């Protein structure tokens, strides 16, 4: 026995070989409105139907507004977005696919609702037409982001053709200091690896700092695996995983759970498993992280300054950094905490779960959002996260401070709806991508943890959350 966790889940799903790769059986398929319409269109054109209906779960998330939701689909002002959400409705109805539609209280970001419902189970294969599907790897699952042709392929055949990745281990040693979170860990990892550093690899996150994370924290880490180019991110099964799953609607219970648990306990890498690559990170020394550039590897510590491009040896990176500084409107040498903000966004599949909202609320409690900001919004990851937060009174804490408390969806993470940055506006955002224009045409994004975002909203500039604790 010398298999990694990734090897084990892979091996348990091999159906056969095709000339261009291995045919893998897919246990769970998540769908949303943006990458599915053309797949359904393809099915119809070929007269095909879904192979196993029960494997699919759909929800609209990318395009839904975060206000005026009582009006349902009619509340979507943008006619093209409305059409897309209606198309998902129609496709799910026509094919008989289970959907949490825009009016369902279980609706939310697809990567939040899968785990929340217990639909993401250990040792399974999970796919979705979305690159952040890597999130679900936190459950010792093999979770892969796929393109629309593959969405159609999975619908029709319940399989995905894949070439096996290499194994990489990222060990995070020690423990996190106060004010430092899972988001800081993953930003630091991407900073080390680079945006293409894990291409062709599946990363298993190990080490004491990962083990001591909650499932929410592990999801945050796995979520951003794709930002280092990894095909997937995984965390081994343990009691934390089991504790999270118990009692969730789609998770097994009773005898079935006992049987499942027996199998799940084996979802760890064997002690003598070999990894093609290993890297280490020391959590003890980690500070809150902030991105300053236009890709997620351009990251510094919160108490650092905007770097000069010539710190990069590689001319391509130096060029990227020069372009990033210009786009971001930054001068090398400026302290990060002097960067004034226009907006703050707390949300996205990286950081919109209940724990994220609790952390942010703790920072905000009894304080006021800076009057220099044009907006500060909190967008819960799902209707159920929203309800839970309201039960705990978190919505009140945010509203009292001057945050907008919104309805669930992807929102300003990719700005397909009305929540966005306007040209040259600067934002602290808990999302996962700071690409040019990602949060709005010519918008400037700084990726941070929920605590840092909350502290920055209070301060009106990027701020160290440890000063607010």
């Amino acid at each position, binding site marked *: 026995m010398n298999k990694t966790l990734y090897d084990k889940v892979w091996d348990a799903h091999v159906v056969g070989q095709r000339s261009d790769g291995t045919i893998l*059986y897919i246990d769970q398929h998540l769908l949303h409105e*943006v990458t599915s319409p*053309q797949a359904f269109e393809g099915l119809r054109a070929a007269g095909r139907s879904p192979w196993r209906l029960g494997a699919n779960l759909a929800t609209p998330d990318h395009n839904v507004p975060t206000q005026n939701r009582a009006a349902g689909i009619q509340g979507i002002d943008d006619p093209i977005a409305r059409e897309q959400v209606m198309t998902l409705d129609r496709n799910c109805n026509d094919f008989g696919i289970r959907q949490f539609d825009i009016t369902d209280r279980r609706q939310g970001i697809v990567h939040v609702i899968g785990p929340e419902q217990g639909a993401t189970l250990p040792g399974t294969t999970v796919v979705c037409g979305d*690159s952040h599907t890597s999130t679900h790897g936190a459950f010792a699952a093999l979770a892969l982001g796929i393109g629309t042709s593959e969405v159609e392929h999975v619908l029709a055949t319940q399989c995905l053709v894949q070439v096996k990745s290499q194994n990489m281990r990222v060990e995070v040693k020690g423990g996190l200091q106060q004010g430092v979170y899972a988001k800081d860990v993953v930003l630091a990892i991407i900073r080390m690896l680079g945006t*293409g550093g894990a*291409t062709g690899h599946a990363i298993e996150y190990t080490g004491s700092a990962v083990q001591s994370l909650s499932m929410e924290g592990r999801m945050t880490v796995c979520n951003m695996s794709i930002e280092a180019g990894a095909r997937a991110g995984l965390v081994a099964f343990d009691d934390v995983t089991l504790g999270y799953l118990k009692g969730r609607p789609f998770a097994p219970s009773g005898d079935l*759970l006992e049987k499942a648990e027996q199998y799940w306990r084996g979802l760890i890498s064997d002690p003598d498993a070999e990894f093609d690559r290993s890297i280490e990170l020391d959590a003890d020394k980690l500070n809150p992280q902030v991105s300053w550039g236009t890709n997620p590897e351009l990251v510094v510590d919160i108490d650092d300054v905007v770097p000069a491009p010539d710190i990069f040896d590689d001319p391509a990176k130096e060029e*990227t950094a020069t372009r990033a500084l210009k786009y971001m409107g930054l001068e090398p040498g400026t302290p990060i905490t002097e960067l004034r903000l226009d907006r703050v966004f707390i949300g996205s599949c990286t950081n919109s779960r209940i724990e994220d909202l609790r952390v942010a609320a703790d920072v905000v409690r009894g304080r006021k959002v800076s009057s220099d900001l044009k907006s500060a919004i909190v967008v819960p990851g799902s209707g159920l996260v929203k309800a839970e937060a309201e039960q705990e009174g978190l919505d009140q804490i945010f509203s009292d401070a001057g945050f907008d408390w919104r309805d669930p969806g992807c929102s300003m993470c990719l700005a397909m709806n009305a929540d966005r940055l306007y040209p040259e506006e600067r934002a602290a955002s808990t999302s996962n*991508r700071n690409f040019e224009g990602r949060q709005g045409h010519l918008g400037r994004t700084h990726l941070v943890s929920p605590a840092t975002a909350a502290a920055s909203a209070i301060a009106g500039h990027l701020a160290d959350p440890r000063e607010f604790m």
Partner: protein
Amino acid sequence: MKPFKLHRGTVVPLDRANVDTDQIIPKQFLKSVKRTGFGENLFDAWRFNDEGEIGKNPNEREINREFVFNDPRYQDVSILLGRQNFGCGSSREHAVWALLEFGIRCVIAPSFADIFYNNCFKNGLLPIVIKEEIIENLFGIAKDQLALEVEVNLETQSLSIEAMDDIFFEIEPGRKEPLLLGLDDIGMTFMHSDQIREFEVRHRQAMPWIFDHD
């Protein structure tokens, strides 16, 4: 899918590393429920100075003269020369559709992001991985010359450029074959239907909890 065998075309050198799919086709164009109509908004935020929207007439927009795609030397291009980690970021297949519809049949780069690379093969766009030094050299020529013409031969896995030795590239045989023949991806898997059914029976016995909500 459109087969890819032999293609001769002009090269556009896009000298940036980490070109992400958000740049190839910005999010506002993803609202379409169709597979077509993305070509005119390829690299929208780079090709135009004003903010793009679905339905905006490209002829009435303000063009960014600085961007290589708007350089008079690089019109009617069909081969894109790129840098490392091309196609990173979002899984949107719309990026591949936009490139194809714009007329790009082939992207040459030192490395590609995994999902983008996969998506290319599903649509008949050929991604070619070539060593950094050769890429560097090609950039030199493509930027100098009026227009660099390249003949891409998938069968022989080679690039022919006038007055140069042929450049050979690697490609997984299993990926080459379907592309040469333009095979239907789903059809290829359906040839294994029995195997899938047999696997499913075994899998259901081993992990019944996965099928509990069917």
